[in-house]
C-alpha cells in the first residue's frame, strides 16, 4: 500500500481527510479551527472502521513508533540524485528575503539572512545575505583580472590562476552591513530578527593576504597611507581602506565555506576586511590602488556616512562595534508550551573577541551570564546559549555582549543620547524581544 507523506497524518486511509483541508494544513500549519475539523474527520472515520488507531485510543504508545513509516519501508533515493545537495523540503521556509517596501528596485536592494533558523556560527553559503547596488553578475574567472597600481614600484596584473598559486589563509569572520538594524534607530519597524539583524553573515573565507600582493608590487608604504579597492561590476564599487588595516588582516578571497564564492557574494574574488562594515568587502574585486589620501567615493560621501544631531555627518565610519542578538526565541515566533527552553543567540565585535554575554528575561533589570560555545574567534560570530524555564508569564528577553577591549553593548537610549536617531548606520543597540502570555514573541524597544 502506498501512503501519501503527510507528516503524522500519514496513517490515515486515502481520502479520509478532505483535500481542501490537506492543502490548507500544508500551507498554514494547523490552527485551532482546522484542528477541530480534523478531529471530527477522525471521529467520522472511526465510526466506519474500528481498526484505525487514533491518538486518543493509542494507549500502547505513539503511532510514529508503533506504525512502520514510509521512509522505513521503502527504498531510498540513489546517490547523486541531487548532484549539488539541497536542504530538506521541511526546511524550505528558511530563505533570504527582501523587506517589503524597503527599497524601490530589487537590483539596488537587500535580501536578509534568516538568522532565526540558523545554528552555530557559520552561515550556509546559499543563505549569506545579499546587498547589491547595481545587480549581481557571474564573472568568468578566466576573464577576471586583479590590477594593483598607484604608489607601487611596478603596477601588476594577476590572473585567478596566479592568485591561486600563492600561499593562502583560511579564516572565519563575520560580515555585517553598516546599515544592519538601521531601520530601528527611531522606533520598532520590522517584526523578525531576519529583518532587524539579517544583514549579518559569518563564513570561512580563503584567500591571499593583501600584504603579500602589495609586497609583490613594491608598494610605497611611506607615502601610501590608503588603498582603494574597486569592483569589476557595473557599480564599480570603490572603498578606501587605511594602509594599516590593509597590511594587518585584510585578504583577497576566492573561497567561502570550502567552495568558491557564490556570484551574489563576489565570485570569483572579493576583499575580506575583518571587523569592518560589509560595503568595504568589495565584491568582484578587480583593482587595488595605493594612494596618499582617502578617495571619498559615492559610498563614502553620500552613503555610509552617519548623520549626527548637530547636522554633521561622520565620514569613514568603518568598525562594526560589539553587538549581540537572541535568535531563538525571537520576533515573530510562537511558543506553544511553557517549560524549559534553550535560549540561543549570536554575538560579535569588529574590535576583537567576545568576552562575555549576559541575558536578561525581565527587560534589563536582572542579568545572567550565558555560556559561550567554542570556537570564540576574533571578529567572528560567537554562539551563546542559556537555560530558561518559561512559566507562562510575559517576559522581555535581551542579550548584552562585552568584547575583549571591555566595550559593553549599549541600550538604544544610550546610543540615541549621543548619536540621535537619524544616523541610519552602526546601530548596535541591545535588542528586546517580548514574549507574551499567549506565547507570541514580538519586537519591542524598552525605555
Amino acid at each position, binding site marked *: 500500500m502506498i501512503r501519501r507523506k503527510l507528516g503524522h497524518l500519514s496513517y490515515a486511509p486515502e481520502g479520509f481527510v478532505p483535500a481542501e483541508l490537506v492543502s490548507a494544513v500544508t500551507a498554514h500549519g494547523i490552527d485551532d479551527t482546522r484542528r477541530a475539523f480534523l478531529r471530527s474527520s477522525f471521529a467520522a472515520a472511526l465510526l466506519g472502521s474500528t481498526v484505525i488507531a487514533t491518538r486518543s485510543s493509542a494507549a500502547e504508545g505513539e503511532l510514529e513508533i508503533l506504525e512502520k513509516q514510509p521512509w522505513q519501508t521503502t527504498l531510498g533515493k540513489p546517490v547523486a540524485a541531487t548532484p549539488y545537495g539541497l536542504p530538506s523540503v521541511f526546511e524550505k521556509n528558511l530563505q533570504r528575503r527582501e523587506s517589503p517596501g524597503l527599497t524601490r528596485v530589487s*537590483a539596488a536592494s537587500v535580501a536578509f539572512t534568516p538568522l532565526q533558523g540558523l545554528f552555530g556560527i557559520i552561515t550556509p553559503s546559499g543563505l549569506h545575505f545579499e546587498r547589491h547596488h547595481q545587480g549581481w553578475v557571474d564573472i568568468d574567472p578566466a576573464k577576471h583580472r586583479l590590477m594593483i597600481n598607484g604608489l607601487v614600484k611596478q603596477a601588476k596584473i594577476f590572473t585567478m590562476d596566479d592568485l591561486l598559486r600563492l600561499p593562502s589563509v583560511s579564516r572565519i569572520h563575520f560580515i555585517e552591513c553598516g546599515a544592519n538594524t538601521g531601520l530601528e534607530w527611531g522606533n520598532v519597524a520590522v517584526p523578525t530578527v531576519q529583518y532587524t539583524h539579517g544583514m549579518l553573515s559569518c563564513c570561512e573565507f580563503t584567500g591571499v593576504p593583501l600584504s603579500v600582493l602589495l*609586497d609583490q608590487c613594491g608598494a610605497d608604504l611611506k607615502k601610501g597611507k590608503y588603498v582603494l579597492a574597486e569592483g569589476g561590476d557595473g557599480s564599480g564599487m570603490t572603498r578606501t581602506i587605511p594602509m594599516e588595516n590593509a597590511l594587518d588582516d585584510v585578504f583577497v578571497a576566492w573561497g567561502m565555506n570550502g567552495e568558491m564564492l557564490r556570484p551574489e557574494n563576489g565570485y570569483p574574488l572579493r576583499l575580506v576586511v575583518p571587523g569592518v562594515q560589509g560595503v568595504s568587502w568589495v565584491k568582484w574585486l578587480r583593482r587595488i590602488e595605493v594612494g596618499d589620501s582617502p578617495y571619498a567615493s559615492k559610498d563614502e560621501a553620500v552613503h555610509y556616512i552617519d548623520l549626527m544631531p548637530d547636522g554633521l555627518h561622520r565620514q569613514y565610519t568603518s568598525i562594526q562595534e560589539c553587538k549581540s542578538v537572541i535568535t531563538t526565541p525571537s520576533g515573530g515566533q510562537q511558543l506553544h508550551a511553557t517549560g524549559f527552553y534553550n535560549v540561543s543567540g549570536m554575538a560579535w565585535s569588529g574590535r576583537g573577541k567576545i568576552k562575555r554575554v549576559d541575558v536578561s528575561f525581565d527587560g534589563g533589570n536582572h542579568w545572567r551570564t550565558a555560556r559561550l560555545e567554542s570556537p570564540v574567534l576574533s571578529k567572528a560570530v560567537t554562539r551563546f546559549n542559556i537555560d530558561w524555564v518559561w512559566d507562562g508569564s510575559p517576559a522581555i528577553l535581551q542579550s548584552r555582549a562585552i568584547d575583549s577591549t571591555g566595550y559593553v553593548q549599549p541600550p538604544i537610549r544610550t546610543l540615541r543620547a549621543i548619536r540621535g536617531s537619524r544616523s541610519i548606520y552602526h546601530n548596535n543597540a541591545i535588542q528586546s524581544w517580548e514574549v507574551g502570555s499567549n506565547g507570541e514573541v514580538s519586537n519591542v524597544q524598552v525605555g
Partner: protein
Amino acid sequence: MFRSAERRSPPPPSRGRSGGGWGGAILIFISVALPATAADKFPGIGRTATGAEVAAWDIDVRPDFKGLPSGSGSVAKGQEIWDARCANCHGTFGESNEIFTPIVGGTTKQDIERGRVASLTDQKQPQRTTMMKVATLSSLFDYIYRAMPWNEPRSLTVDETYAVLAHILNLAEVVPDDFVLSDKTMDSVQARMPNRFGMTKTHGLANARGKPDIQATACMKDCAEFVQIGSRLPDYARNAHNNLADQNRIWGPFRGADTSVAALAALSLSRSVALTQSAPSSAGEDAVPPAPTGKILYAKHHCAACHGLTNKLVGPSFRDVAKRYQGKSDVNVVLERKIKLGGAGAWGNIPMPPHATIEASDIASLVSWILEGKF
C-alpha cells in the same frame, strides 16, 4: 617589431652560458622577462601592467581632483543628456523618489554661502537628497562616470559627464544657466558645494583602535527601576512582512506566529498537540518548473528596472500593458518597434529609452510574453 620579438626569445643555452658577445643580449632578456621588483618572493606570478591597461581601469577621481580627466560640458548640453538618459529614473528635476532617493532638493542660497545644509538639522526636508549630503564634488563626477546610467554604466563620455553634472548643479542652483563645467572650473564649484563643511572625521569608528563614543555599563541586578515598552509594531502592520509562520521552521519549538490571523488570545495548545507536525507541500518534492523565457529575458535585459509585472514603476506594469492591448491585432509589431526605438506618450510623458542592442528575436519573445499576460 622584429627586434622586440628577438629580445623576448631566450638565447640558445650553450652560447648563453659562454658569455662573451651574448652578454648584452642576456642582460636585455633578463630585464624584459623577469619582474623588476627586487624582492620577488613569488617568481612567475603576476605580470607588469601596461600603461594602456592602467589608463583603462584607473578612472577614480579624488577630492583633490587627482585623476580628473580633461574635458568640459555645458548646463544646456547636460539638460539634453539628463532628459534623454537620466530623467526617466531620477525625475525631470532630479526630485523623483520612485527608483531612488531624490538627487536635488533641500538646499538653499544660504547653505551655498555657509557650506552647511540647514535642513539636515531643522528636519524641514522630509528626505535627505544627494545634494544635501555630498561635500565633495569629485564624488559625483567619479560616480556618474563609472556607474550611470544605472542600466547602462560606462556609456557616458568624459564631456557628457561634465555636462550632466553641470545640469545637476544647475538644478540645485549651485551654478548659473550658462555655466560650463570642466577640469578647470571644478575647483570653483567645489567652493560652492552646499554641504562642503558637513563632514567630520573626528570619531572612533575609523579603525579598531579608535576610542568608542558610547560608554555603557554591565549592571547585573536591580538595573532598571521600572521597565517600560517605548515602541512596538502597530497591529495593522501584523502581516506587513507576510505570514511569519511561513518564514520559520515548520517544526520544533520556535515556529512562526500565524500573522495572517489575529494573535492567539492565550497559550491554548497543550504540549503534545504542539508537537504535531504539518507537512510541506508535495510540490516541494517536484522539480521547480522552469521560468517562462519571457521572464528570463525580462530579468536579463533589465526591463525590471522600470517595469513591475503587476505594479507600476517608471513604466506601466506589464499586466496593465497586457490589459490595454488584449484582443487587438498587429500590436506585436508596434510594441516591438517601440521597445527598440523607445518613446513616450502612450502612458505618460516619461519616455522609455531605446533598446537598440537587444536582438529582435528577444524583443519578439518579450512582447508575446507580455501580451499573454500570465505573470
